[in-house]
């Protein structure tokens, strides 16, 4: 294998078995493990993300691709030195206090994981204290807050206020999303960003971390 195009294509096609075979072939050929990941596997996943954003792929297809990529990464991992492969960032997500809706938040979590981020999902009905604890425990750089109700969206503001009280507001970027949420609301409550959908959320996280 003299380039990683075939490997990337297998990721894009969601062909887990083929990804494993090509990854193993690249390893056997003595190719640089980090290049296998960055130029082959992640490169393929980047294309998947772009295609999803323009509506050219369905979520289940993206998840298949992500599973294929992960299978390849697992083969390469033992060849890497400690710390050589770091996640792109750690994100704590959850639906805010009083709100039981979670599929939008789950979707965002899956898309972020598929893009190489470490995601700590706190589930639904999450209190500010639970968010704070998870941020501190995982040294997270991003906090993603979800709400679907007009009566719970203000819990986002409350959570941001508690971040300030705890003195960690400047350590994390806060993203907000959900049906009743808008950019205007995000600005009003002092969030760092608003994403209308899962694909945009992934893109926004990338921007904020860079």
């Amino acid at each position, binding site marked *: 294998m003299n380039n990683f195009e075939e490997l990337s294509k297998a990721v894009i096609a969601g062909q887990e078995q083929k990804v494993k075979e090509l990854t193993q072939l690249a390893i056997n050929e003595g190719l640089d493990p980090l290049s296998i990941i960055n130029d082959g596997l992640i490169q393929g996943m980047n294309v998947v993300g772009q295609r999803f954003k323009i509506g050219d792929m369905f*979520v289940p297809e993206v998840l298949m691709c992500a599973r294929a990529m992960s299978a390849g990464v697992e083969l390469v991992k033992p060849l890497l030195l400690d710390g050589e492969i770091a996640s792109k960032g750690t994100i704590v997500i959850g639906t805010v206090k009083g709100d039981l809706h979670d599929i939008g938040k789950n979707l965002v979590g899956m898309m972020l994981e598929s893009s190489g981020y470490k995601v700590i999902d706190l589930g639904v*009905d999450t209190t500010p204290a639970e968010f704070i604890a998870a941020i501190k425990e995982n040294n997270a750089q991003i906090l993603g807050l979800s709400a679907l109700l*007009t009566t719970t969206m203000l819990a986002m503001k409350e959570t941001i206020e508690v971040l300030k009280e705890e003195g960690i507001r400047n350590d994390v970027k806060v993203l907000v999303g959900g049906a009743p949420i808008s950019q205007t609301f995000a600005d009003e409550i002092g969030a760092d960003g608003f994403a209308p959908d899962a694909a945009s959320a992934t893109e926004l996280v990338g921007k904020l971390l860079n």
Partner: protein
Amino acid sequence: MNNLVFKDVCYTNLDEFVFGVAKKPIHCTNGMVIGGGTVYPEINFTLPPMLISEATMPKVKAQYEEMIHGVCAKAHELHVPGMLVEIELLPPCTFNPQWGIEVTKVIKEVMMEYEAKFNLKSLLRMTPVDIREGKKLKHMYRGEHWDNLMETFRGCGEAGADFLAIESVGGKNLHDEAVMNCDLLKALFALGVVGTHDMTILWDNIVKIAGQTNSLASGDTACGFANTSMVMANKNFIPKVFAAVDRVMSAVRTLVAVERGAVGPDKDCGYEGVYLKAITGTPISMEGKSSACAHSSTVGNIAACLADCWSNESVENVRLLGGMAPTISLENLAYDCRLMNVASSRGKAMDMRDMLAESDRQFDPQAYILDPSVVLKLSQKIVKGQTHFERTKIAASATIQELRDAHKNGAVLLEDREVRYLDIIEEQLNSVPNDKEEFLQAMIKTTTPDKFDPAKYDLI
């Protein structure tokens, strides 16, 4: 305890299957007859951005009072022949039953005031939110969550609710996974095994409470299930054919409410209610273009074909140019209903129904499967199943075949990638064993307790 078994469909003649008329109308004590020839508006509204707490409850009640006053005044002004008001309680008002009961009292009092002063007939549907989910849930049928839910139902009934309803969530976490992965097996498990099992227990209790509180057990909806698919499909996240198949499958689950004694009208956001009407004759509430204020859909007109009540889904109390949003929504609904009722009175209901269907059905498989003729055809196949599991399987296979045929003869437009998914989900379906127990055990092995704990459902 009811255990009605519907072995055949209630309608065999397509010319009887139309909006406003149901085989089993509901005769209410105030004289309104749902499914008796008149389509009634069903208005639903919710709070603007605000927190609900003990401290804010006076403001919460004031908001509800303002909304119901605006709605009733507009209904009186527009001479509506009667209306339904639905309040979907928000989580804090079910976690704290007394708050939900207080909201019920506020709403009912104003409705009664308008009936006394202006002879405005109205009925109140109270829908506690199904709080049986989340990290703190210990068991689906015991403990704090269950007790609060049942107390809210009882309190709402005692406070004057005419109808009790719910958007139940048993099996929802499983179904969420199914939707995101287009996993028809998991959807079948969530709807045809776990969901139906859960609704049987839940609705036995709701029906019992309704009987004790002089209210009526109305119906459920696949809001947490097929509507999730619908929203995902409309965002282009999953194939529309999956959402369409999921919708018809969900009808078997929603039907359980009626099997256990609910009398309707079925809940507005349960688009699968058309199948429930076909099979049981129960009146249904539907929503379409009228609910664009809450969510987008591709069934704006066709959803009205069989509606006995016509709803807006929900709208928050915010000011628009024409006034407050709930009042405006009521006005929209009132005019839609007027038109349908005039069509009926002039003997043109069938023409209007067919125009509503024709205007939508070609453009989306989710619309196509709401066409009355398709509903009857698929319903006849569904009732051949002996169990919920079998019926849900039949619903899936029959819908896949129906969509294939419709695509071939040009009755519904499907992109190539949508057609490919018909193959994918059909292949999945073909791998399902006939034995429910075998399927149950196999599916339990594919899940984790955080997504689905069978012990919480008394399934092991």
